[in-house]
């Protein structure tokens, strides 16, 4: 018998031996530890796709400082400094800076889920505003009837009691609410008490107007007026504008939504 034959036999026997004891692999033990990506790690340069060229192009455009913030601002529930700042400037942008549009809103409602990152204290770059509002969301005005208004208020009550995530609470401007035991005990639109017999015009984004973030009630509004203004552009324009007047970025909590026991 030659070597090839011997080798054939060995392979046959080993294969049979292997097959007879080949059971399924089963997961029997594990170890888990997620790793934080901190600055001890180096960065990979991805030179093969020339990442640097993309980085330089983005940095040129986005590192521009638009203004400085007096404080760190973040979302909150039932009220947050960042939400107050953004809704205030949105309402101001429509009602005071774009009078030629011929449309005004009584109050503004946005969503905290859409404000993606806090504004840091100090220099505010164009990049920061893109990170805060990355979406191409347009400001729109909706005419609310009594039932839509009631649904909106119920929604605000529900979200105001939450405080578990960044998405809790509803940022508003131009409307003040006191909530007690899941009911609204006081509600002012600007300086007048809310009157359900009135129609109100609310400023929001096209995303929310289409029922985004589960604001279904906005979907049914009969009258929807686009403004052509992107929310991100409104923020950038406002921040640059006040910088020209040597005003720094700042906002405060002012009790516009309050929950009492």
């Amino acid at each position, binding site marked *: 018998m030659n070597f090839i034959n011997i080798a054939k036999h060995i392979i046959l026997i080993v294969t049979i031996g292997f097959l007879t004891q080949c*059971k399924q692999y*089963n997961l029997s033990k594990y*170890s888990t530890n*997620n790793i934080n*990506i901190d600055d001890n790690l180096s960065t990979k340069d991805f030179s093969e*796709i020339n*990442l640097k060229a993309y980085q330089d192009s983005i940095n040129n455009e986005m590192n521009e400082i638009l203004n400085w913030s007096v404080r760190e601002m973040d979302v909150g529930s039932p009220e947050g400094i960042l939400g107050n700042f953004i809704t205030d400037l949105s309402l101001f942008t429509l009602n005071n800076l774009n009078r030629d549009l011929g449309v005004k809103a009584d109050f503004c409602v946005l969503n905290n889920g859409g404000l993606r990152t806090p504004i840091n204290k100090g220099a505010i770059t164009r990049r920061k505003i893109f990170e805060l509002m*990355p979406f191409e969301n347009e400001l729109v005005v909706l005419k609310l009837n009594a039932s839509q208004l009631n649904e909106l208020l119920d929604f605000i009550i529900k979200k105001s009691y939450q405080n578990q995530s960044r998405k809790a609470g509803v940022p508003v401007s131009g409307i003040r609410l006191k909530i007690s035991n899941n009911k609204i005990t006081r509600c002012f639109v600007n300086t007048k008490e809310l009157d359900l017999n009135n129609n109100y015009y609310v400023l929001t984004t096209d995303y929310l107007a289409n*029922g985004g973030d589960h604001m279904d009630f906005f979907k049914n509004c009969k009258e929807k007026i686009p403004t052509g203004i992107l929310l991100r552009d409104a923020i950038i324009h406002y921040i640059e504008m006040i910088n020209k007047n040597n005003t720094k970025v700042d906002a405060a909590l002012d009790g516009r939504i309050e929950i009492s026991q």
Partner: protein
Amino acid sequence: MEESKSHNRRNFLKKTAIASLAIPFLSSFSFSTKKKLKKLTILHTNDMHSHIDPFPLNDAKYPGLGGMTRVASLVDKIRTNEKNVLLLDAGDIFQGTPYFNKYKGKLELQLMSKMGYAGSTMGNHDFDNGVEGFSAVLQHAKFPFICSNYDFSKTLLKEKTLKYKVLNIDNIKIGILGVGIQLDGLVNEQLYDGVKFIDPIKTANNYADILKNEKKCNLIICLSHLGHEYSDDSISDIKLAQKTKNIDLIIGGHTHTFLEKAKKVKNIENKDVLVNQAGWGALALGRLDLFFDKNKNEIIKLVDDNFHKKNYAKI
């Protein structure tokens, strides 16, 4: 005849001799498979949200942290130390930095392809430029999108995503499925026009059954963009784990949940399911090291928690 008989006998004796020679080799072979466990290292990200670079140094929350370019160097390092590495993502690759506004997701997918991702599922923000926008940059992904519960058959994404994927790594057969969140109320309707959402629990059970019983997978992973856990009764990764069977690991996203390590949850058959998520913004890399043996033992034991903390604290 006589000669032939004796020849056969001689041959038989030879064969027996060879077999007896092979026995010690065989027994040592079986000894080594029993003793040595097969190791599979699973690395995963979710909700990277276009954070290619580390967060700016003046960021209020994460100054100088995170970034896909850093995740890439860590993955490279782990690949040099581990034989079997599987890199996965659980969606929301897009939207969050100007890279997405300017390059529409092309760059994120190119980087992930270079990093050697084996698969991802779609998150709600991956629809931010519509099915059309996603479809337009998909060519840059050299890895599949696994979307089990979105029916794209009436859209541009028809046949461009997978319902499930089977991989073989070092003879461990791995089945991967992917479930996405209900888009209604999260994404503008015109952006997902024609996409049909199918119940994630039913879908996951259906494909996990196929992967386990038809495809005979040794490990079944569900990529999920449902979210880790909610205070109300919305479907979440924890609920998905509890209400399904045959799934071993759920890699989650959407809620931007930072977990120190994977959670262990009992499924509908009282078997263990691991549920993990790695924050967002490429600020964390999920890591699980799974050990496989050939015993029928299906009880999962937690072992040596800290062993790779030692190795990877400083890289």
